[in-house]
């Protein structure tokens, strides 16, 4: 039963191993550089500072997208367009704040459009594009990779059209608050991530949506016979992912204080997929774990921060990311799982964590 402490079930859990991995990385940090763990409080900003806070703060863009991507991957799909949507969301926001820059040629603490509308429209356009993906996949039965490739290519172009190709800067305090502000001593992005995580958990675990997603992801035929409307479920998942990419885009734009259609959200789709896979959700669909995804995203950021901390070039962290991917996929691959023994005949049992179960 659920309430009983069941050690073997904990060991089988997908996220247990992700947590252990994260703790081991932190342990290595602790041994080599204890000051890595320092957290200080700065009164002027009312915020906590330190590498650990920084990891959480900086991982939020990917985490937020990865939460949506978790649903998409649980449905045996992928969404490549999220990075482009990040750029799009930022472009839309800056456009609304600065418009054509004729009235106020210099950046400052102002916005032409009220903050409420800035956020609503920026998120709205991303949700719209997300639903475009969903429509192509759920209604017209296109392969997710192809369908989302279209927006991945065209999305940045749309972003540039919105801003007329200009890079605009803002110092609008309300907008900067999204990334620089703090609530309860914590940077705003962390708060936003936590709120979205709670909302997503409620959506998937306090309604039957999560179970439906898993069911369709594991066995679409049986789900159909059982009366699930799979196209609606698939559509919703892509819509949510689009919306969350918009949120991530706002945080990013707020952080750098400008729109950057060329570089905003570059490779985000890859990192988000990676976070989901590390978090224990299989690319072939099925059982998913939002908590696992969050941990996966934090693991990626921890390694980047850690490596960066030792003065290695930021871009070189790619090598480490590659190594994580290789380790994870090798552990998850069927032949290795079979080799690791006594797996049941089920084809879709996934996840490295379970290997040891």
């Amino acid at each position, binding site marked *: 039963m659920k309430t009983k402490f069941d050690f073997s079930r904990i060991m089988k859990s997908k996220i247990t191993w992700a947590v252990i991995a994260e703790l081991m990385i932190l342990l290595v940090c602790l041994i080599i550089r204890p000051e890595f763990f320092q957290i200080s409080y700065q009164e002027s900003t009312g915020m906590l500072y330190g590498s650990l806070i920084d990891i959480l703060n900086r991982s939020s863009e990917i985490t937020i997208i990865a939460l949506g991507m978790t649903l998409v991957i649980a449905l045996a799909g992928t969404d490549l367009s999220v990075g482009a949507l990040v750029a799009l969301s930022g472009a839309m926001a800056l456009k609304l704040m600065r418009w054509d820059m004729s009235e106020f040629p210099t950046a400052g603490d102002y916005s032409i459009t009220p903050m409420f509308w800035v956020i609503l429209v920026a998120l709205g356009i991303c949700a719209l594009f997300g639903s475009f993906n969903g429509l192509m996949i759920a209604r017209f039965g296109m392969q997710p990779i192809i369908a989302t*490739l279209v927006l991945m290519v065209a999305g940045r172009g749309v972003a540039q*059209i919105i801003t007329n*190709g200009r890079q605009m800067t803002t110092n609008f305090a309300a907008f900067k608050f999204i990334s620089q502000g703090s609530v309860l001593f914590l940077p705003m992005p962390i708060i936003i991530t936590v709120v979205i995580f709670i909302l997503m958990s409620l959506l998937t675990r306090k309604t039957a949506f999560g179970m439906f997603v898993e069911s369709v992801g594991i066995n679409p035929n049986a789900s159909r016979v059982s009366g699930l409307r799979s196209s609606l479920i698939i559509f919703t998942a892509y819509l949510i992912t689009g919306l969350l990419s918009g949120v991530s885009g706002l945080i990013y734009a707020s952080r750098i204080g400008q729109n950057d259609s060329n570089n905003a959200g570059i490779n985000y789709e*890859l990192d988000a997929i990676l976070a989901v896979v590390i978090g224990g959700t299989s690319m072939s669909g099925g059982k998913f774990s939002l908590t696992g995804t969050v941990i996966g995203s934090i693991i990626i950021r921890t390694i980047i921060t850690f490596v960066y901390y030792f003065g290695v070039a930021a871009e070189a962290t*790619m090598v480490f990311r590659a190594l994580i*991917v290789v380790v994870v*996929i090798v552990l998850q691959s069927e032949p290795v799982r079979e080799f690791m023994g006594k797996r049941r005949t089920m084809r879709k049992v996934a996840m490295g964590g379970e290997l040891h179960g």
Partner: protein
Amino acid sequence: MADKRIRIKRQSLTNRIFNPKHVMVYATIGVFLLIYLFGALMYGDKGFTTIRTFLNMFIDNAYFGISAVGMTMVLITGGIDLSVAAVASLTGMFIAYGNSVLGMDPFLCIAIAMVVGVGLGALMGAMIHYLNVPPFITTLAGMFLARGACSLISRESIAINNAAFDALAGWKIYIMKLVDGEWVKVKPIAFVNFNVMLFLAMILIGAYLLKSTRLGRNVYAIGGNEQSAKLMFLPVAKTKIFVYAFNGFCSVLMGVSYALYVKSGWNLALQGGELEVIASAVIGGTLLTGGVGNMLGTLFGVMLKSIIPALITFAGNLLSWWGKIATGLLLLLFIGIQRIVVTYSARRKGSCR
């Protein structure tokens, strides 16, 4: 079915021409001609129709085309390779760093890059086949690895200054015409360079491999139905590993070609280039689901993708990012056509005979 003719009538020429398998290629060629015609009508007076403009389209996009040859093969097997641009960038770094910092011969650097690129490709192919890992994830790791390696070498753009290399980059064949019994260069001056020749050579090699070798036919068979290919005892593992290795080879050539084009190496060079390459192949009629595609289509796919920036340049007032949107719309158009062709063939099958 009751026909008992002894002489079998092969499908007529028109039938063969309108084979739905080729419709994609025709669509590509057709759209290319349409856009070219449009450009000729709009900007003919500004020199859009000159040989120079036409050849420049090749010169500016040859490196993408080279990679598209390998990518087409990968896509026909039903796979995908995201690492191509990163491997090309790594090649550029090898040449630039090896030559400018270590003082190595640039061609030795290319040879080393070749070993690394082909090796990485073969490794990824083996992982995809033996570990049954999705190609998307495997080659994503390959991309991270190659990009990371680039940055480990250097984070600055490094210029390449080597006489032999420069000579290769500057090598040109001018287009001549006969005037009064004498060969003179056409005006405005038009030429093809090494990159264009390399691109066309790779297209020919790719076409030969796909059309005239068992290996090439196995590529199609695997893409059509991998399970069947196994049951027909085709060498599936060998073929898949070869295809990814060959694609690695093409990626390295893209790197060489790009280095010749910009005469430098940069860790962030060609970022997002893998998408351009995949898009070229898809526009050229290659199905991402595998089994369908050919080099003629890819050639025109590359041309179609390069005519858009050319047109935008001529338009002058039009902004460059329309290129991205146009590419996206083209993709959508061709994916739509593919859907229709696939549904059409499926429906026709039911009624046939």
